[in-house]
């Protein structure tokens, strides 16, 4: 067994020694060629990877810049929204103030119109119109003044005259709220609730309807009728969703006590 192995090994070694120099050079040249091709392929690959990396980097930079711009834009938009909200509130306040002034002006104009006509220059001249009763703005203003003085009965009488004579006036719904307030001030809650109900019935599209509903809901809650109160609060949220009363009603519906 051992001589056979030795003979085989010797034959294998001998065959390698028998290769010519040309064969070796050819082999070396092929090996170089393969190595050059590999290196070239690697370089190309590396160049492509580098290109990709740089492209990704550029994209990331762009994305970052865009993201920063977006964040700034978002901030600017939020600020603009905040400022717009503020301006809307200011405009609302100024509108309210202007409305009050217009109301006062209307009242004084109505008052002026009702001044007795000067004595006619020609005896018997009756062409000038006879002075009529006070207008709605004048009635509203004078009744409000009475209410501020604490004269609830006199104030109520004036507001009632306004609602009776000028039921379509812009001031009528608020006049009714004040009529109810005079009853509430006199501790006559039943009468106040009744008038609040009339406000909703007669002027459902007025913002004061939401106020009237909320007042009735508060009264019901105080009287120990939470279910009925919740019904009215629901109605405020559904029918007058943008009113201040709706904001309060939503909270009370979320946290019933």
């Amino acid at each position, binding site marked *: 067994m051992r001589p056979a192995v030795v003979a085989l090994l010797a034959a294998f070694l001998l065959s390698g020694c028998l290769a010519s120099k040309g064969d070796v050079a050819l082999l070396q040249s092929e090996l170089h060629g393969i190595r050059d091709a590999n290196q070239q392929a690697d370089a190309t690959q590396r160049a492509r990877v580098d290109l990709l990396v740089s492209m990704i980097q550029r994209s990331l930079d762009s994305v970052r810049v865009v993201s920063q711009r977006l964040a700034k834009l978002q901030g600017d938009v939020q600020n603009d929204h905040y400022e717009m909200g503020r301006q809307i509130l200011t405009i609302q*306040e*100024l509108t309210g103030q202007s409305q009050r002034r217009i109301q006062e002006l209307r009242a004084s104009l109505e008052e002026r119109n009702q001044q007795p006509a000067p004595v006619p220059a020609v005896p018997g001249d009756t062409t000038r119109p006879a002075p009529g009763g006070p207008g709605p703005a004048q009635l509203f203003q004078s009744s409000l003044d009475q209410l501020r003085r604490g004269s609830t009965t006199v104030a109520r009488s004036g507001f009632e005259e306004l609602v009776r004579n000028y039921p379509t006036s812009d001031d009528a719904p608020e006049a009714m709220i004040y009529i109810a307030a005079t009853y509430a*001030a006199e501790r006559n809650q039943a009468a106040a609730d009744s008038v609040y109900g009339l406000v909703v019935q007669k002027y459902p599209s007025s913002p004061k309807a939401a*106020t009237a509903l909320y007042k009735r809901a508060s009264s019901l809650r105080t009287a120990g009728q939470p279910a009925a109160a919740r019904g009215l609060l629901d109605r405020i949220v559904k029918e007058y969703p943008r009113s201040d009363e709706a904001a*309060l009603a939503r*909270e009370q519906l979320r946290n019933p006590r």
Partner: protein
Amino acid sequence: MIRRALLALAVLAAPLSAQDTTRGVRIGLTYDAGTRPGVVVLPSRGVGADSLRAILQRDLGFGDRVNVIDLDAAAADAINRGANSWPILARLGAAASVQVTPTPTGLHLAVYDVAKQVTALVRDFPAPPMTDARGWRAAVHGLADELEESLTGTRGVARTRVLFERNKRIWLVDSDGEQIVAVSGGTGIHGSPAWHPGGSMIAYSSINPWQIVVQDLVSGGTRTIAGGTGVFISPVFTPDGASIVYAHGVDDGVDIFTIPTAGGTGRRLSVGRGSDNTSPTFSPDGRRIAFMSGRAGHPEIYTMDADGTNVDLLTPLEFGENAYRASPDWSPDGRVVAFRSGNGSLAQVLTINLRDRSLKQLTSEGANEDPSWAPDGRHLVFVSSRSGSKQLWVLDTETGRTRQLTRGAAVRNPAWSPRLPQN
């Protein structure tokens, strides 16, 4: 036109004058219309008699309704020697003279009508011994208030106290500037104090953590009424004392809430929609609340019903102006709201009439802010920098007279008590 205006003024003034004349007839005292009756506080004998006289003179003087006449040395000597005092008092211009004597059980008051040369009133008042300085002084202040009512028809405010902030604590001072004591303790930063209408309890805000705290002034015990995330500030009791109204906010502005004094859950009253709404103050009937709101872009005073409806701008907002109107306090007679207008060194105290919205500036010297009405609806306590540091000052809104109430470290946010009960 001018003649007509003068005639109208005369017609208006006539009943007022008559009213002034009749105001001082509670004990039959008469004095000229439009003047303050002259009052002499006679010296008396006994332990603490000099202190008693000094406190009484000061209380009557601070009341601004009578003219306290000092006895000169000769007159005092003559009266002490038992001379007939009527001509002396009449010569000094006194309509009445008063003598208070310490007794074993309290104080003995005698009031004399100088014009009629008769004793007009005699009364005994219980008082603790002088060793109980606080109680004894309170009894003297109570006597001064009753005396003022007897002389003028209007009760005084000597037996009242003022809460204020100093060095992160709540403090108390008597209406005459004496007896300053710290009320709140603990680790928090305490501010914006308010009185319970009964005068035995106070509420204040505490920072770190934010809370609304109620404290019993007799026992010193405290209770947290509201607290948690966000700010909790400017509490005030409803006029019936059953609820506390305060300002609370987290991220989206600050709104006004109400909570039962006995405890419960807060319910929102104002809808500020992101703006700051603070410093509520009640009308005397409890039906309306005045408060500060920034909903117009800068602080203005608004009013609303006690349930949060019928919001109305009270102070005059002009387009383009950037006013700062804050710290409202509704007067006890319900007629006006006092508030601070302007910021920093420009701050002044004004009132606005609720009937015709007319404004009246009450202060002009230094920066003045945080007004709080006395229960007589005539005097105001406020913070002023006129003495160099922020101190409490008292203003008589009828005469414009002022007096300094505190000295020392700077103070903020005074709250004048209701008339305090007899202990």
